[in-house]
């Protein structure tokens, strides 16, 4: 299920945008309320840790509020928020890498724990084994994305985790649409090669 600001009521959104621009914190909170759940899921998918995800979402919303006058509607509000979320996440990862205990690794282990916890939740659709295989595939891809250069990882995350369009990605990343296409191609090519180098048993990711 994709929740973007398309789902917001346009007249109400315009009014809330105007209120938020005028410095009304309540208006800003109302504006981002429908996007909070997805933002939290996106942060959880990035970090693999719900507590860390909440912290990052909180930091993201504060930063978004502080820099809201700079939002010029060149892209969707959800994409703009996700770009800030990515920035905060990458900053926290850099901080974690400089520490003696790698929080990056910790978050990956916790992501696996989260996946195992999710296995216990009965969900309609695929069998538990199939669902577990999909989650494993997703966890593997998340690890591969961590290994990509930052500019390639950003394009992948914006496209698949935020469902951003080419113009939105170009606006958020501050580059041309051609550059976004090229980065997406290189990122997917690298992920494909990484997947090909996985052991045979882990290569067949169910679609």
């Amino acid at each position, binding site marked *: *299920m*994709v929740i973007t600001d398309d789902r917001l009521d346009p007249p109400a959104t315009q009014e809330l945008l105007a209120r938020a621009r005028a*410095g009304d*914190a*309540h208006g*800003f*909170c109302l504006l981002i*309320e429908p996007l*909070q*759940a*997805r933002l*939290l*899921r996106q942060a*959880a*998918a990035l970090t693999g840790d*719900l507590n860390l995800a*909440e912290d990052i*979402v*909180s930091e993201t*919303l*504060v930063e978004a*509020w*502080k*820099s*809201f*006058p*700079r939002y010029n509607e060149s892209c969707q509000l959800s994409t703009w928020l996700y770009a800030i979320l990515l920035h905060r996440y990458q900053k926290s990862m850099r901080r974690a890498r400089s520490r003696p205990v790698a929080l990056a690794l910790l978050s990956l282990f916790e992501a696996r724990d989260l*996946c195992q916890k*999710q296995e216990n*939740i009965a*969900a309609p659709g695929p069998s538990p084994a199939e669902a577990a295989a*999909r*989650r494993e*595939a*997703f966890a593997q*891809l998340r690890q591969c994305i961590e290994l990509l250069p930052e500019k390639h990882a950003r394009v*992948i995350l914006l*496209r*698949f*985790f935020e469902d951003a*369009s*080419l113009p939105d990605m170009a606006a958020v990343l501050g580059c041309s649409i051609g550059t976004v*296409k*090229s980065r*997406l*191609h290189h990122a*997917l*090519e690298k*992920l*494909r090669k990484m*997947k*090909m180098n996985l052991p045979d048993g882990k290569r067949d*990711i169910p*679609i």
Partner: protein
Amino acid sequence: MNWFLNSCRRNRESLCLLASGLLPEPDRIRIEKHLAGCAACRSYYDEIKAVTAPLAGWEKHFAQIEPGAAVHTRLTKTTRLAGRPEPVRRLAPGMILVECWRQLILPSRRIWAGLAAVWMLLFAANASLHSGPQTAVAKSAPTSEMISSFRQQEKILAELIGQNELRATAAPKPFSPQPRSQRRFEISAV
């Protein structure tokens, strides 16, 4: 050159866009026609699709995550406590240069690598210009022709100096010092 000649390789970017759901309609039809007839591209597309499909369905794994009332309140409270938003700064012309330096040049590895390469080139050119002639003189031994021409020049110089000496002797400077007694006389006369 191979990339230019091989149309399948040129289609790879479009295949990646197709797998990501970003290819516009006319290009999509063209690529799908190509895919129907090209086994190599189909195989590549399947491999890319195997990467994009799990990513596209990421939200299913996190569908049960919903912010509770406590989380929602905490997020709202934190935002409200953050104070007023910062107004958009209008930069002075001088500050634009500083910002450009801080945001574009300072973090860019390529620019620093380019500057380092330019500096190395200048250094190498400078070093070659200065050390070249000295090393050439030091290494080359004087030939017999050089020695003979040098001696001829020496002779010409000696002749020129001799002529000057003759001129000097031909017109000596008149010098007639007066005796002390006469000087005294001059002083007393004054």
